[in-house]
C-alpha cells in the first residue's frame, strides 16, 4: 500500500487530494486556518485579514469587535507561550482557526503546554464557565489588580476577558503527548446575533 496517496501532499499523479482538502474546509465551515510559527507580525497579519473579510461581509460592529478581541488574546497567548521546541515534534505545532456556523462564529486554538500548567488553567476555565457576566466582571477586576500578567502559564486575565467577550461557555481539551507536554485546545464561540 502506498501511504503517500492517503496524504494531501504534492502527489504527482493527481491534485484531487488538494481539491478534496478544499471541499473539507468548506464543509467544516472554516474561514481561515493557520498552523506553524506564531509571532506578533503574524498576529497583525491575521487580524487585518479577518477585519477586511468581516468588513466586506458587513458584520455587526459589536460582533466584529468581540471576534477581534478574542483573536488578539488567543494569538498572543500562542506566540507568548510558544515553546522553543514546538516544531521538533511533527504534528504538534500550534494551530489557529476561525469558522462560522449558522448560529456562531467560532475560534479554535491548539498549542503545546507544559503539563505543570494544566491544573491552574483547567481551574481557571472551569471557574470562568461557572460565572455569569457580573461574576466575570468582578473576577476580571480582581485579577487585574492582583495578578501578574507577565506570568507565563495561561491562567491569567486573558481567559476571563475572552469569556466576557464570548458570552458562551469556553470549551477546552487537553491531550497528553508525554510526561512533559500536552496539547491544549480551546474553542470559543461568538453568537451571530448579539
Amino acid at each position: 500500500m502506498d501511504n503517500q496517496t492517503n496524504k494531501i501532499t504534492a502527489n504527482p499523479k493527481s491534485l484531487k487530494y488538494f481539491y478534496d482538502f478544499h471541499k473539507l474546509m468548506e464543509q467544516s465551515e472554516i474561514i481561515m486556518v493557520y498552523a506553524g510559527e506564531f509571532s506578533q507580525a503574524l498576529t497583525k497579519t491575521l487580524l487585518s485579514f479577518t477585519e477586511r473579510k468581516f468588513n466586506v461581509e458587513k458584520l455587526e460592529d459589536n460582533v466584529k469587535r468581540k471576534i477581534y478581541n478574542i483573536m488578539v488574546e488567543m494569538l498572543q497567548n500562542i506566540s507568548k507561550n510558544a515553546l522553543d521546541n514546538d516544531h521538533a515534534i511533527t504534528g504538534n505545532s500550534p494551530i489557529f482557526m476561525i469558522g462560522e456556523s449558522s448560529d456562531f462564529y467560532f475560534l479554535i486554538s491548539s498549542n503545546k503546554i507544559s503539563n505543570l500548567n494544566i491544573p491552574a488553567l483547567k481551574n481557571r476555565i472551569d471557574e470562568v464557565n461557572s460565572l455569569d457576566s457580573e461574576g466575570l466582571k468582578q473576577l476580571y477586576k480582581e485579577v487585574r489588580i492582583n495578578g501578574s500578567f507577565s506570568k507565563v502559564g495561561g491562567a491569567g486575565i486573558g481567559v476571563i476577558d475572552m469569556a466576557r467577550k464570548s458570552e458562551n461557555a469556553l470549551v477546552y481539551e487537553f491531550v497528553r503527548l508525554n510526561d512533559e507536554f500536552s496539547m491544549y485546545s480551546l474553542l470559543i464561540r461568538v453568537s451571530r446575533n448579539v
Partner: protein
Amino acid sequence: MLKELNIVGTEDTPGIIFDSQKNVFELSGRSLPEDVVSFYKPVIEWLDELEKNPIENLEFSFKLDYFNTASSKLILDILLKVNDIFSDGTPMKIKWHFLAMDKDLEEAGEEFSELVEVPFELVAY
C-alpha cells in the same frame, strides 16, 4: 520643564503625546504591543518625572479604540500613578473617550473610574 513625549501610533501600538507646552496629554489608537512593559516604560518614567515636577489642572485624555488585557494592566498602572499625584494635592483630571456604540470600551472606562479618586469623565463620541 517636563520633556515632551511623542510616540507615533502604529497598527498595534497607541500614539502618545505628552506635551506640556501645547497642554496635550493624550493616548490614542490601538494597544496590543508584543511587550507591554517595555512599550509603556517611557510613559511610566514620564509620570515619575511629573510626580517630581507636578503641573496643576493637567487633563489626560484616553482615546483608545482597542486594548488587549496586557495593556489593560498597564493602563491601570498609569491611572494609579496619576491618582497618586492627584492624592498628593495636584488637581488633575482624566477624560475617557469611547465610541458611543462601543459598550465594552464604555464599561472598561467605568471599571477604571471605580478604581481611582481623580476626577474621571466618560465622553462618548
